[in-house]
Structures are given as C-alpha cells and as structure tokens.
C-alpha cells in the first residue's frame, strides 16, 4: 500500500514539474497540454482504489498556482472529475480498457468546459462561446491524447504483483 502511495506522490510531482517545464513548449496553436490533470485523471481511472481524492485536488491546485487563472478552479474540477471517473468505473466497469478510457474522455471534456465557465465568471475578458471554441475544445483534445498516453503506463505500474494476486484470492 505504501508503495502505491509513493508512486502516486512521485507521479503527481513529476506531472506538475512537467507541466511547469515541458508543457509550455508543447503548444500546438492555442492548445497546451494539461499534463497534471491528465495524470490525475488517468491515475484515478487506473487505480483500483475508489478514494483517490486528495491527489487530484493537490495537482489541480498546483496547476492553479503555476498559472494565472483562478486559484481553486482546476483543483475543484480535478477532484470532481476524479470522483466522476471512479463512480463511472464502479458502475459500468467490466475489466476492459473501454470504460476507464471513455470515463477519462468524458471527464476531461467536462473539466475543460467548466474551467472555461470558471475563468469567464472570474473576470477573464472573453465570451463563454469564444472560450469554449478557442480554448476548451483544443485543450480537451490535447489533454485526451496526454491522458491516453499516461493511462496505460500507470496501469502497467499499478498492475498487481503475483504475490498480491495470491493473497487476494486467499482472503
């Protein structure tokens, strides 16, 4: 269990550092990947636990503090998205890749749309329609690609070890 938490923490720190150092240079037109968010949601989907709540919040908060947007906005949305993903997987999950991946895509879409709403509400001098068209949709596409790259990696690292499988079957 400690190893899982260690991996969660290390992954989150690396994701935030990548967001600060690498992401600004990966811009494609108006889109910039949100590596921190992609990691948080991919982790929430890949983890077998259903209580991944603190890490997405902290990663989102780090994103808010690194940028110039409203503090707390991405933190709140990342947390809600993680809860949504875990609820969807708990309800529809069947052990395949489809449900987690679909959950991530849906959650990322909602996060990007709601973040546009938060930004425009908190004083950004742009219309909501413009924000959705020029920021949310490109960002959603980019974040989805990032999450779909990260998700299999996390799933690989979090795969149960043979000993753990045995213990689970005994209990």
């Amino acid at each position: 269990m400690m190893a899982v938490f260690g991996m969660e923490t290390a992954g989150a720190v690396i994701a935030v550092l990548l967001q600060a150092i690498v992401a600004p240079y990966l811009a494609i037109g108006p889109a910039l990947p949100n590596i921190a968010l992609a990691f948080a949601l991919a982790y929430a989907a890949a983890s077998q636990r259903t209580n991944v709540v603190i890490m997405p919040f902290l990663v989102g908060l780090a994103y808010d503090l690194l940028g110039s947007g409203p503090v707390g906005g991405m933190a709140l949305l990342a947390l809600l998205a993680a809860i949504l993903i875990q609820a969807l997987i708990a309800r529809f999950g069947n052990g395949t890749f489809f449900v987690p991946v679909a959950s991530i895509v849906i959650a990322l879409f909602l996060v990007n749309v709601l973040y546009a709403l938060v930004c425009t509400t908190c004083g950004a001098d742009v219309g909501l329609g413009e924000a959705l068209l020029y920021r949310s949709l490109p960002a959603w596409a980019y974040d989805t690609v990032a999450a779909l790259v990260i998700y299999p990696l996390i799933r690989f690292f979090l795969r149960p070890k043979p000993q753990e499988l045995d213990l689970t079957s005994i209990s």
Partner: protein
Amino acid sequence: MQLSFQDTDHRISRIIAGVLIAAGIIMIAVYAIEGSSGPLHRLQQGMHAVMAPVETVGSGIGAAADAAEEAVADATADEATLTALRDRNAELTQLLTQAEEYRLESERLRELLELKDIYKLEGVSARVIGRSTDAWNQTITLDVGEEDGVTPGLTVMGPAGVIGQVMEASPSSCLVRLLTDPNSGVAAQVQSSRVEGIVRGSLTGALELENVSADAEVVQGDVVLTSGLGGSFTKGLLIGTVVRVEGNAKDGTRVIVVAPNQDVSSLEEVTVVFSASESARIIRKDMLDGGASDATQADGGSQDGGGSSDGADAGTDAQGGEDA
C-alpha cells in the same frame, strides 16, 4: 471485518472529498473577490517566483527540438558520404554551431540595442526564461526582477515594438502579460490619423483595435502606437500594423485587426523599459519591414515609463479596460 474497514475508509474519503470541494469553492470565490494583493494572488505570485528558476530548464527544450529536427534531416542524407565526413566534421560542426549561436544572439541583442537608441530608452535587457503553463494566459517569465529595478507596470519591448507589460515582479524574476493575452489592454492611436482606441488581445491570438469612434477612418497598413493614455504604457512605442478592417463602422460591427511586428513565441531577449525620452515618438519604417532605413517623426511630447505599481494596476488588471 474487511468490509467494515472498507466502509470506514469510504466514509473518511467522502468526508475528505466534501471538505476539499468546499475548500475549492471558497478559494474560487475568494480569488474572484479579492484584489491583486489578496492572499491567494500573493500565494500565486510567490509560486511564480519559486518556480522561475525551475522554468529555465524548459527554455533549453526549444533548442533541443531544433537539434532533433536537424538530426532527422541529416539522417536522410547519403549514409556513405556522411560516414566519410562525420569524423572530420564533428569538431568543426560543434564549433560552428556554437559560433552560430553566438552570432544569432549578438544579432538579437544588437537589434534590441538599436531599438534602445531609436527610442532613447532607459531600461534593462532580459532573457525569456519561462512561458505560460496554461492555455488561458499569455505570459512570459524574464530573468530580471526587483533587484534590477523592475517593478509591475513597466512596458516590455521586443526587437520590433511593445510586447507586453510587467505584471508581477519578484527579486530575481518577473512575469509579463503579453499584448496577445485576452485580458491585456493598451491605449493606442493610429499614427497617421491620430485616431485613438484600445488594442486588446484575444483568444485567437490576434490583436484588435477597439473603442474607435465610428467616423474615424482606419485602413489596412496604418501603423498603431501606444498613446500613453492612462499612464500604464510608455507613449509612442510601436504596437503593430493594421492588417484587416472587417464589418461596418456605422452599425458597430467594425473589427480592426492589428498584427504585431514580431512573433512573440520565438522571442528570447527583450527590454524592460524604465523610461523613454522625447524621441519615443519616432518610428522607423524599417521596423515595420524588418530592414534598416529612415526615421519618420510621428508625434511630440514625452512620457515616463510608468514604473510605479500604480501604473501596473492600471495597465495589467484582468479587465484591461482601465486604459479606456
């Protein structure tokens, strides 16, 4: 027993989630209500100052990408030829690359110095060490700060004109909001007709000249300068050129698109302007064309750089409407 532990675990998770959701909502509300000196804004500024040295690591990534591109081009050449020349050229290539890097850097710095001479600017040269980490804000981080005399509100210029304004300053770095940021607004005037308006950034990345009176005539090719109104930007500095006028002024649908004179995404060195003298109104045609030639007088009077924090509040406020 195991189920009981799981129930407790879930209950604790729900409580934590509830607390965090409440914390998130409170933070958003406080951030929206508080001013730029509020605790959350200060926390954000502190984080920017702490992360500035870390962001310098990323500035090498652009160069690495260029090198990778070059390597791909080399790989497509004839292998036999490359093998024969590789050893002989390795050292020379290394030296040449280094020399080319120095040459390009000196060229960029010379352009900046030239601009300083033209405008009789007093300021400090700075390197771009970081860029915006999110898609919603157009900012850059510079390697100069309060220790170099930089304060919020100062105008920042690239080799061919204004690119933005200092938004935050820490002891050794500062954050600059670019003109292309949707929240940016600068009081401007058209050089030929003296028509005044506000140049704003947009999410599309274009600059738009707004608040221009309906009877004013603005045509493609007009040069747009800072007007100095509001005191937040130094007067008479080049912003860009009108590239498109769409819609009709009479029915209020006119959109005037201004193209900045440089691509900010590739800027590596800039000047933070402390003040400009009388000749801040001189605009050279070559600055618009990218060459070197005559100077044309545009206007008279002098304007200080607006180096006070008051100027900052006026110029870089999220609403950007203060310049109006």
